[in-house]
């Protein structure tokens, strides 16, 4: 005769290791977050929303087999599973043993007993059902998950330029759920932009680019709070505009603003995801002040007019800013969620005609005019004072 459900669970419990919440509590205090013990919550999302053991990873039991390797890749890792009362976690422990996990325990009494004992409970911020659906494909990626998605929703990212690079970056960052996207551009949509600036549309020709970009982003994802700056970034407004953003996406089309941005972002310690394009060539790097080189470490002085074609009218393959802008968006998401290896101290060159990528090392310059000094050594009087880059650009034509 087949056992009842309750009998089956009893049998399973006799075959696995169980641990009292007091021992888990003590082990967690001892490990002090060093990762020696992995706490896995196997309950459903609605239960997790009401509170979890601090530091626990959520892997619903229904997805245990497919997701546990992302959450706990090392099968020799000490794993403690819990659910509400200790039944589902016992079944899950049996499953993990069958998957080859060597040191698995199920916490008796589950989260209910943990809470009754008065131990710490973390109540996670939760996504709405609509957000869980919208970002479901992010949730399934272990490197992002619910925690990473929350970071994206909390992030404030400033896009400089709603042009070739800014268009794809803005669309994908809005789609990814970046909570606040600032966008700086003083231009209006022109017919000649539409070969590459895909955030704009033919019926919005003549509309300010910040308004056109806002409309497209809001239509794609109403979660996003769009902050518009219909102005040209200059020494008088840069500190005010960029302060408070977590990251800046540099897609501007001229050297003066790139140097100005570098100096201001180093002073405010805001990382810049920088890309530039010309013809069939693109460059990409992440300038994270004091963690890596800054733009001036790479390019201490701007090139003279004849080697600075960006100040004049130049052609570009329409899809090239798409490629480079999306690489920028990718770096933003990595930086916000803390996943992967960001392109800090590395310069990526893309040459579309040859379909080649080249990676070069970028070192911090110990004599860098800007980032060799700590920002706090720069006096208030110096803040916001920059060389006359406008004269340079005028000379470059």
């Amino acid at each position, binding site marked *: 005769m087949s056992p009842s459900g309750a009998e089956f669970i009893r049998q399973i419990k006799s075959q696995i290791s169980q641990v009292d919440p007091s021992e888990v509590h003590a082990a967690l205090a001892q490990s002090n977050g060093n990762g020696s013990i992995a706490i896995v919550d196997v309950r459903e999302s609605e239960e997790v929303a009401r509170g979890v053991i601090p530091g626990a990873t959520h892997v619903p039991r229904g997805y245990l087999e497919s997701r546990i390797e992302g959450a706990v890749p090392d099968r020799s890792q000490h794993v403690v599973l819990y659910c509400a009362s200790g039944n589902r976690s016992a079944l899950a422990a049996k499953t993990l043993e069958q998957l080859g996990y060597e040191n698995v325990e199920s916490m008796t009494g589950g989260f209910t007993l943990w809470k009754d004992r008065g131990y710490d409970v973390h109540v996670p911020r939760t996504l709405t059902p609509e957000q869980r659906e919208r970002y479901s494909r992010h949730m399934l990626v272990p490197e992002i998950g619910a925690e990473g998605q929350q970071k994206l929703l909390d992030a404030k990212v400033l896009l400089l*330029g709603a*042009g*070739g*690079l*800014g268009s794809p970056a803005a669309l994908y960052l809005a789609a990814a759920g970046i909570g606040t996207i600032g966008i700086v551009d003083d231009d209006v949509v022109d017919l000649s932009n539409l070969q590459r600036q895909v955030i704009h549309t033919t019926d919005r020709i003549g509309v300010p680019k910040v308004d056109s970009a806002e409309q497209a982003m809001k239509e794609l994802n109403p979660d996003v709070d769009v902050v518009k700056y219909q102005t040209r970034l200059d020494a008088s407004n840069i500190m005010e505009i960029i302060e408070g953003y977590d990251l800046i996406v*540099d*897609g*501007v*089309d*001229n*050297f003066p603003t*790139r140097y100005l941005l570098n100096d201001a972002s180093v002073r405010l310690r805001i990382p810049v995801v920088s*890309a*530039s*394009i*010309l*013809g*069939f*060539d693109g*460059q990409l790097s992440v300038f994270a002040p004091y963690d890596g080189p800054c733009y001036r470490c*790479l*390019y*201490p*002085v*701007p*090139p*003279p007019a*004849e*080697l*600075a*074609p*960006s*100040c004049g009218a*130049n052609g*570009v393959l329409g899809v090239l*800013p798409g490629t480079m802008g999306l690489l920028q968006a990718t770096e933003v998401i990595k930086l916000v969620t803390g996943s992967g290896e960001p392109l800090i101290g590395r*310069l990526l*060159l893309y*040459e579309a*005609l*040859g379909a080649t990528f*080249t*990676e*070069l*090392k*970028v*070192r911090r310059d110990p004599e860098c005019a800007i980032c060799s000094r700590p920002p706090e050594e720069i006096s208030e009087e110096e803040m916001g004072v920059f060389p006359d880059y406008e004269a340079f650009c005028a000379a470059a034509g």
Partner: protein
Amino acid sequence: MATVRIPPVLRPSVGGAKEVDAAGDNVGDVLRALADEHPATQSQLFSDGGDLNRYVNVYLNDEDVRVLDGLETPVGGADVLVILPAMAGG
């Protein structure tokens, strides 16, 4: 012969090529050979005093020659020199 990668802004000065071969035992020799062959690159690469212009980055394979031995950095036949100017297009 080392391979020298030519950036877009210098390609008109070398007849449109993306890469050229140039002979030399060190970075300076290779670049001077390039400038001899394509005189239009001379003033773009070198200052009047013969130093590399500060706004031109040169990489030996993936490393900036300034953190190596600059123009004196030895170059082998299989090496690639990348000439890299800043670009500002967006």
